[in-house]
């Protein structure tokens, strides 16, 4: 696949703030973007760090009244969507031929559990219809389409860690076939206490920092947020955020992912030791290589944030320096990433716990 699909706008919201400027600032001045939350466990309450997203800026685009029944999951998606359109200068354009594609690992967690609360607390006959209808995975895509009056095709994909690359295959396909003129593409996932409890049961307490290059130790910290992109076919040979050169989803049972020589590699390692070890072999390859999960946290749609960083790197012509706290073992890699990008493709690689992997390649030239 060599799509030549251009990225026209990027909209992100996460623990680092909202908007492409906030992401750029976080990349230049990395710090700890987590907040502490308390989770209840069988051995008492535990305070753990989490990357949380604030969607209060959504009122810049929609009246408060319109947001009354919109939950946090959909609000993150809406904010990401509006920011991407604004970044592309397309807030006012006609959207009849715009497709909407949203990827999510877990969907509307809060609302799903709130719906079950209504059943448990009040009985089956008093289950909440509003919570039920907002608990479906495609609620975010529906709200985005409704508020933006986007009547093109709509798709929501849920493939855990592979959600972003899997959904992006369809975005590229729609544009290549001419089904739509543009695709508002994004990923969204939210944190909730139940998820925090499950993660604690699975992995225990893992410290305050994600160390994506420490492949021996679990260091994942949960995150939430949304990363959106306005994509279109472009006749131009250059695009400030670059082009999608390639998208692939496959499995390592049939061979390791191959990153072409001369590429730059962003690994999606996010502190999960089971997946992390699978990235280790890339350290010995002669590739400029880095990871950005300490900026946005561990969540299924993390590859969306790597894609946003890749787009921003292409726009600035340089890779962003690896934050100091990333547990890097091979320091020579950090020297490599100060190089210019030029025409080299950036590969964003995500490997799942079952050995499935997704690769998204962005390039500055068509």
């Amino acid at each position, binding site marked *: 696949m060599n799509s030549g699909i251009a990225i026209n706008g990027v909209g992100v919201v996460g623990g680092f703030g909202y908007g492409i400027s906030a992401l750029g600032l976080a990349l230049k001045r990395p710090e700890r973007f987590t907040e502490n939350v308390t989770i209840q466990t069988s051995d008492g309450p535990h305070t753990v760090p989490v990357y949380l997203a604030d969607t209060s800026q959504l009122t810049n685009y929609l009246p408060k009244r319109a947001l009354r029944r919109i939950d946090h999951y959909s609000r993150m998606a809406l904010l990401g969507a509006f920011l991407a359109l604004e970044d592309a200068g397309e807030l006012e354009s006609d959207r009849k031929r715009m497709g909407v594609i949203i990827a999510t690992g877990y969907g509307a967690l809060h609302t*799903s559990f709130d719906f079950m609360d209504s059943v448990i607390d009040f009985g089956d006959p008093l289950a909440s219809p509003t919570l039920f209808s907002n608990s479906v995975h495609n609620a975010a895509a*529906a709200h985005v389409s409704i508020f933006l009056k986007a009547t093109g095709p709509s798709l929501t994909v849920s493939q855990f860690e592979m959600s972003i690359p899997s959904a992006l295959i*369809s975005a590229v396909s729609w544009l290549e076939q001419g089904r739509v003129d543009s695709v508002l593409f994004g990923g969204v996932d939210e944190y909730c206490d139940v998820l925090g409890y499950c993660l604690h049961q699975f992995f225990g307490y893992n410290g305050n920092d994600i160390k994506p290059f420490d492949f021996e130790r679990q260091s994942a910290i949960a995150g939430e947020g949304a990363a959106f992109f306005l994509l279109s076919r472009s006749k131009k040979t250059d695009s400030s955020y670059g082009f999608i050169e390639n998208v692939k989803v496959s499995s390592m049972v*049939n061979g390791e992912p191959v990153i072409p020589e001369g590429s730059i590699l962003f690994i999606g390692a996010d502190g999960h030791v089971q997946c992390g070890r699978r990235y280790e072999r890339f350290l010995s390859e002669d590739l400029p290589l880095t990871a950005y999960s300490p900026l946005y946290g561990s969540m299924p749609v993390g590859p969306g944030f790597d894609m946003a960083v890749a787009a921003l790197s292409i726009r600035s012509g340089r890779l962003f320096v690896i934050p100091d706290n990333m547990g890097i073992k091979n320091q020579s890699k950090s020297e490599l990433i100060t190089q210019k990008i030029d025409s080299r493709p950036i590969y964003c690689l995500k490997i799942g716990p079952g050995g499935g992997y997704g690769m998204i390649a962005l390039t500055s030239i068509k």
Partner: protein
Amino acid sequence: MKQSTPVAITGIGCLCAGGQNLSECMEYLFQGERLPAPPVNISSDHSVSYPVFEVKEELISSEEREITRTCALTLTAALEAFENAKLSPKELKEHHVGVCIGTTVGTTFNREGFYRDYHAGLFPETDRVKRFLNSNPSSLLSHKYGLTGPRQTVVNACSSGGDALGLAAEWIRTGVCDMVIAGGADELCRVTYNGFISLKITDSEPCKPFDRERKGLNLGEGAAIFVLESEDSIKKRKMKARSYILGYGSGCDAYHLTAPIPDGSGLKQSISEAMETSGTSSEDICFISAHGTGTPDNDKVEALVLSEVFPGTPFCSTKGYTGHTLGAAGAIEAAFTVACLEQGRIPANIGFTIHDPGLPVSPVKHATEVKGHVAVSESLAFGGNNAVLVLGRIEI
């Protein structure tokens, strides 16, 4: 949009309350009887027992236990599809095979038993969560058979199954893979049971799609899995296509989270795209498999659109036989559509007895002979999603 290359269907597997395989399901449809019953696998404290269409345990052939019921349904239907397509597990590994499955419950973190314990402060073990995490339908199918192509689980609510088939056909056309295992699967569970009742769109009696007295849907469960192949793959395997996905269209109403837009513009747009990509016109369509849930709103909008776009063309909803199988519905009904084209007949729209003067058209009351090679299958969904498939063969 240009006319698309037809994508061959070489195998179909299907199970629902009416049968363990497509041939049993078709026999059941043409018997003209149905078997809705109070739920067995789920209990509730509603004063009324809303009938459902459950798949009997013995019909699910998958022996795997550490997966969700949705995945067990998927694997059962997939086995039939592979057999129908004359594909062995070894042969599957020799092709670049993608997986695209639609579902709703299948990817939702609504493990109620676990959550009840959590809610009660019992700090439950997470084995039930692990089972959910191991049960993404597309990943599971891909992993079990060692497939190398992309996997995508479509969660477009009730149009998921239809969308998954249309998207999978795109993968073949654009060369993403040379074979795709595609379809839809969904299990019945208390969350959807209570949810649809809370929306007051569930009938306490067997549902009556398009009938004047219709009061809502009955829920069901099941799965349908298709094997889609490129022409190259068919030639290499010396197979013949059973049927084709000729066209696919989808669009969003952008109107309301749960109600369809009253003028049916999203559905019309989707039909228009599906017809255009299939290279057919409304005169070529010999019948329509309607979404026909039995809810007042859905059937009203769908009848309006059918009267405008396909005047005089026979149509039927099969949800009176299967219940609304949510993410599986679009795929199950596409399987029925292919089988009906093969048999040259469509079943009676069971539950329909009295014409609704508010609807411009009515479905077939009796099993009806159809002449032609092309049919349409429609799916409408929460979120204003519409998915339309054009299925069959274009005679040259």
